[in-house]
């Protein structure tokens, strides 16, 4: 056991400050364990979110020494023995209290995405698809919605969560639908016009912070950008469609409705 120094942000929407805590730390502990110890002993009302404590639910997201992290997967032995550990709420979302932020904007973005639209089942009542065809979709579906990527995304931060760009989490949700072997919907116009695929400038910060190691940028966002380019800007594809009379939507549904 050893004493470790913590600075934890405490406050609410009106403001707050870092409070110092000196805590006994046992071998094998993660940052979340230390916060729980503070909560049980010194600050019963310290607000934080957590659930599974095994990196599977994405509840305990916070900024630890300035880095967006899951506190349940951040081991105490990853810090120097004399290092003070500073813990604060996600910067991109409004603070509710202490380490808890209002992430409801993310749920609103998800709701904007039209739902999965499966092609008809086969004659025997099943859907057939092969492992190699679902591998890339399964990668995106590993997402635990911790919103660390949303927190670190420059576009979302700079634009203060306007709805122009849904953010990396929902770009890969869109990718998981667009690349789903059974999905029959055409999602490209919305991906460009409603969800803002063009706004990502590929800095890969989201990929770096993903605790599930999903290759958000290279496997998700860039392929979507390519599909948008093919639809709107590839002269050969456009000519081909004209020659063969293939119609492809270029207006989004909300534009068509106007």
């Amino acid at each position, binding site marked *: 056991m050893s004493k470790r120094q913590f600075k934890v942000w405490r406050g609410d929407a009106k403001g707050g400050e870092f409070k110092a805590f000196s805590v006994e730390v046992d071998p094998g502990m993660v940052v979340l364990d230390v916060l729980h110890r503070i909560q049980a002993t010194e600050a*019963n009302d310290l607000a934080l979110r957590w659930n599974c404590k095994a*990196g*599977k*639910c*994405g509840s305990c997201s916070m900024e630890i020494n300035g880095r967006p992290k899951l506190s349940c997967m951040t081991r105490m032995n990853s810090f120097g023995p004399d290092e003070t550990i500073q813990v604060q709420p996600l910067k991109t979302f409004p603070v509710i209290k202490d380490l*808890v932020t209002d992430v409801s904007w993310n749920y609103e973005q998800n709701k904007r995405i039209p739902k999965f639209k499966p092609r008809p089942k086969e004659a025997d009542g099943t859907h057939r698809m092969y*492992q190699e065809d679902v591998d890339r979709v*399964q990668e995106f579906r590993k997402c635990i919605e911790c919103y660390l990527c949303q927190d670190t995304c420059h576009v979302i931060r700079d634009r203060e969560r306007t709805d122009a760009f849904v953010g990396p989490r929902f770009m890969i949700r869109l990718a998981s639908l667009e690349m789903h072997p059974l999905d029959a919907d055409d999602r490209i116009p919305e991906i460009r016009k409603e969800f803002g695929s063009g706004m990502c400038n590929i800095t890969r910060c989201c990929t770096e912070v993903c605790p599930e190691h999903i290759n958000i940028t290279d496997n998700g966002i860039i392929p979507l950008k390519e599909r948008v380019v093919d639809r709107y800007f590839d002269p050969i594809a456009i000519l081909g469609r004209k020659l063969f009379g293939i119609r492809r939507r270029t207006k989004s549904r909300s534009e068509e409705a106007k």
Partner: protein
Amino acid sequence: MALDASQIQQIEHDVLVVGAGGAGLRAAIECSAQKLSTGVISKSLLGKAHTVMAEGGMAAAMGNVDARDNWKIHFRDTMRGGKFLNVWRMAELHAKQAPERVRELEEWGAVFDRTKDGLISQRNFGGHRYPRLAHVGDRTGLELIRSLQDHGIHQGIDFHMECTALQLLKDGERIAGVLAYWRDTGRFVVFRCKAVILATGGGGKAWKITSNSWEYTGDGLAMAYEAGAELMDMEFTQFHPTGMVWPPSVRGTLVTEGVRGDGGILKNSKGERFMFNYIPEKFAAETASTIEEAQKWLDGDKNARRPPELLTRDEVARSITAEIKAGRGSPHGGVFLDIASRRPAEFIKRKLPSMYHQFIELAEVDITAEPMEVGPTLHYFMGGVRVDADSQMSTVPGLFAAGECGAGLHGANRLGGNSLSDLIVFGKLAGTGAADYIRGLTATPTADDDQIVAGVRHATEILKRDSGANPYVLHDKLQDTMQANVGIVRVKDELEKALADLEALKHEAETMKAPGTSQYNPGWHEALSMRSLLVTSEIVTRAALMREESRGAHTRNDFPGEHEEWLQYNVIVKKGAGGMEVEKRKRPDPPPRLKEIAHAKIEDLESGKVGADVE
């Protein structure tokens, strides 16, 4: 100061679902499909419920991997796993309907692992005769909850996140609503509704070593009890055989049964594969008797019998406990679970990615190179609110329960993989049950203000008193006594000790104090959940004291072995005028045809000699 109930926020729905795990979400989707105005409240954010932690898969006899599988064999496995104490009709409904519910998830966007033919793949699991668990690596629960969530948000359901239910409201005997509070502000809200579906899971947080998260405090069980509903089979608490044992801060975190399903074996400190020494007589005919035969099974020999590591969870948990007690445990007080020597690293990383990740990050153990240390962890409540099998309605009109907080499907012991399928089968049935009930109502039940005012007072006194017991300390004490006295192996004296401790804790809890305001105050939330935990713990302990035999997950050292007579009874707990009433209630006779199938020799069932004419 007078408290005016009309000042409290009111929200109206036809039906309110309490809990947003698999059962709650599936129930809400069904309610909405039945054209009911539907609300869902959840203590956490959407998508974070414990369903997300389920790893191995959901059991459904689709026969995609082994065409010999069908509902009757799944039904038989479930009954045998539950030591025949299951509600027969529920086990039948579950086995019959699970395949359709799984295919429906695919229709809603779920992407399961595939067979070579492009169908939903299925894996082996303890107690299931054939590969039966539809899965996605070892993150099946995440796939289930996300598929239901992403489908559900487009069905016109109102999701009220971070909202905790405190109390069921009634109009006479009938359900009329729920009193709840918003966690972020601490403000109260009254949901006025015609039916309530509880989907609140179990109460694992009463134990020190548990796979459960903070949410599993028995809220639904305690609310149902207070509202007068009957609870059943509460003595059967499942200890999952394989939880992490080191480091201390993750002790209890689940290690999926999929490790054993995919070939993992259990060893003691002497390197012995000890499960061969613990094969019970009733499973001997269907279990490999030698290491060689078990190896053949792993290599795909369809005539080889299953390895003993895949016996039911109660058997494996008891065997591990016995090995540790005999001094053959691992350095940190568990046993070894080894898949590294059985499968190539690539296979392990592909089929068990979360386990690989979890061990490397939290324990600094590479499971592709070295064995894991594992030991039993409190995982699941087989018991819960007693419900009608087809409608899921409790003994309180308008109150329904689905998933872990309902009782009946699993009897004395649940098979792995039967939980996720339970959620979707009985979640849906609870939805249709609630719709049928509401259609039959002639007047809308209305809760009077007195109940609401009393509920609010009871909750806020914790904040208002000047000083008192620290709820975190009380929770620790509760976990100590439940772990020590209501564990895997139970005995009368210890159960009585637990009851005495619970009595003392109840008195202490009357003076709980949470410092701070009502705004997102975990100390206050902890104190409120302590009340549910105390009721739940007392129910479990009293039921465990009454059942004087050892069956499934309930092991009494002073009453070893199954007693034929006890198979005739369920233990029922309900609130009486003078306090908690515990009753030994005669079970109805099993339907003869189902009984025949459950007790048939496997050869006779598979050849059609038994049960061929049962649809």
